[in-house]
């Protein structure tokens, strides 16, 4: 069940990167080996408030987050990118993944607006599963969490 959901979510992430980030498939792949160490980690997540409150979280390093933002905004590889644009871009990645996860759940639920942090803070919660991926050979982690409390209580 867990691996099935994780496989679904990874497939959603790959579809999103193919359609909206890269314009071609194959850039977001499973990462073999030890868990990735993220440099200047950026965390982006949305909560799915339903019978079993869940959170989908995307984490990557700041350099990779900047590249993703440039790709989504159709900017050049060396163009300066504002932190607000990185926040927006990573938030949308989390939002699209979370919205599709919500569609996989049988019961009615509500999707939160995305939250993005740049200070390395991971939100509280119990890890359900995590998948180590890489985008253009840079680490990117997608995970799902149980959310026992309201988000405001966890930060």
């Amino acid at each position: 069940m867990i691996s099935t959901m994780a496989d679904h979510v990874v497939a959603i992430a790959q579809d999103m990167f193919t359609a909206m980030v890269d314009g071609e498939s194959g850039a977001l792949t499973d990462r073999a080996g030890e868990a990735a160490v993220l440099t200047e980690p950026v965390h982006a997540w949305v909560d799915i408030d339903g019978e079993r409150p869940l959170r989908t979280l995307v984490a990557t390093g700041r350099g990779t987050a900047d590249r993703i933002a440039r790709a989504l905004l159709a900017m050049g590889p060396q163009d300066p990118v504002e932190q607000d644009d990185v926040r927006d871009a990573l938030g949308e990645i989390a939002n699209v993944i979370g919205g599709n996860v919500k569609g996989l759940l049988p019961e009615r639920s509500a999707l939160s607006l995305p939250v993005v942090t740049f200070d390395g803070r991971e939100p509280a919660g119990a890890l359900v599963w995590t998948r180590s991926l890489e985008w253009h050979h840079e680490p990117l982690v997608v995970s799902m969490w149980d959310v026992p409390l309201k988000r405001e209580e966890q930060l």
Partner: protein
Amino acid sequence: MSLRVIVADDSKVMRQIVIRTLRQAGYGDWEVTEATNGAEALELALAQRPDLVLSDWNMPEMTGIDLLRRLNASGADIPLGFITSEGSPQMRELAESEGALFLIAKPFTPDSFRSTIDPFLA
């Protein structure tokens, strides 16, 4: 056919992607106005009377479904289509029951824009 369109999404990144995808889908001659939430889209729509509103669902200030309800209540005959990450059967059913023209799920492609939007332009 050139249309006047409002694209409503709280994400600047997503508004740009939607506009870029419209262009790639062959709607490059559409005149697009951007709105950052449902409330702003409602104000713009009632003032400008566009041919179409393309709206996200989950936005601060006013959600897309509330925007649709407010447009309907105003009596303005302004069609609205959703572009949202939430494409579940329940959301599609709710969108349809409230009178939405269509619902395009994110992630989308120029092809999915064309196959969804073209039938309504005929």
